[in-house]
């Protein structure tokens, strides 16, 4: 118990003054990049379930191209941290269910996917410094901008 206590006291002493922020190599694949890539994979995979209900093959192609590029960036086994969540740009299971029976809902949810995920991608564009991740972000922005313009 004394050893534990001592370890605790030492640890407590060591953490003051505050440690510097987590070291992330400049322009490296850091916490923001990792979070974005995992989020974008989860969003694209879920979006494909919605897009499978449409005849817009270019959207499905674009999501699959993005997924390939995003998975190349992963530095650890992929974990879906966002399944079941109401995330911007990520259609929910309930929305996909509704879209499967209502063409109007399908159109609306596809558009919401594009507009919201474009906002997320733009936000990532201003936060991500790792060049290979930034390239994929730019690709995703180009895709969504064109897809929205195409209707």
């Amino acid at each position, binding site marked *: *118990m004394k050893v*534990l*206590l001592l*370890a*605790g*006291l*030492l*640890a*407590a002493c*060591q*953490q*003051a003054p*505050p*440690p510097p*922020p*987590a070291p992330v190599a400049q322009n490296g694949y850091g*916490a*923001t990049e*990792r*979070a*974005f890539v995992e*989020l974008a994979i989860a969003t694209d995979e879920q979006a494909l379930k919605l897009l499978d209900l449409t005849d817009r093959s270019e959207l499905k192609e674009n999501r699959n191209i993005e997924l390939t590029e995003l998975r190349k960036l992963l530095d*650890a086994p992929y*974990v*879906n*941290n*966002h*399944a*079941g*969540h*109401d*995330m*911007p740009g990520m259609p929910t299971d309930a929305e996909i269910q509704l879209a499967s029976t209502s063409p109007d809902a399908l159109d609306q949810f596809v558009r919401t996917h594009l507009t919201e995920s474009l*906002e*997320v991608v733009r*936000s*990532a564009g201003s*936060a991500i410094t790792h060049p290979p991740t930034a390239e994929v972000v730019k690709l995703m922005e180009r895709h969504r901008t064109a897809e929205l313009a195409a209707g």
Partner: protein
Amino acid sequence: MRKPLFHIAAVIGLIATALSIPVAAQGEPVRVAEFLAECPISHRLPDDPIVLPNLAGASHMHDFFGNHSTNARSTQQSLEGQTGNCNPAADISSYWVPTLYRDNTAIAPTGVTFYYLGEGVNNPAAIQPTPYGLKIVAGNAKATGDADSIARWSCLHAGHVNPSKNFVTCPAGTMLETYLDFPQCWDGRNLDSADHKSHMSYPVAGGCPSSHPVSVPKLRMVLRYPVNGSTAGLRLASGTGQTMHGDFFNVWPRAEMERRVRNCINVVIKCDHNGNHG
């Protein structure tokens, strides 16, 4: 299952007595190791500075409590020196939870209390101040049912309604409430980790495991929502009630945290908002 609070408190009291921990002489202090902060909702944003750092607008919706400045870009440095809405004002920590909705209408909790407790470990005298800048996530945002959830929903003023890991139907005149206990054993080194969980652990058999040897106060979040009646249409931004989770970014000024741990937790005495006791 209901937590045997009073039983635990009594045991801790007995242990404290056995260890001859000094206790304030005046009055009759309540022998529960506790201090608290009450922090109403400050703001709502689709941001998460722990899980999606720097990615503004990329998260499911969160209700933020405490520090007014919290957003996707928040860091220890950005939060310190800001103000919040906690009682006590000294606590400028950030706390956040997924937003609760009835259909598509967001519902803010009207009672938000963060208890810092000495329970869960057998030796509250050894509890250390929560490290400055520590980030903790509790609960399972990815829960798919009861088995992988630690959420607890119950009704305020209706103890006969059994608590559940999902939303419960509360009688008219009562409020839906939820409890969440944060892990209280720290690895002694990391203020965060890649999965935001592995630097912290829950205690095992009344002590912190050797992998996470530093015991810190147990943070218990209690939220009360102005909700009763049917659970139809209730959802969290993260899904069902079982996905309830909470995030904590500790920015208590060091001296304020240290004083409370010394005066309330280590000696097993219930303190008021200002960290004092009668």
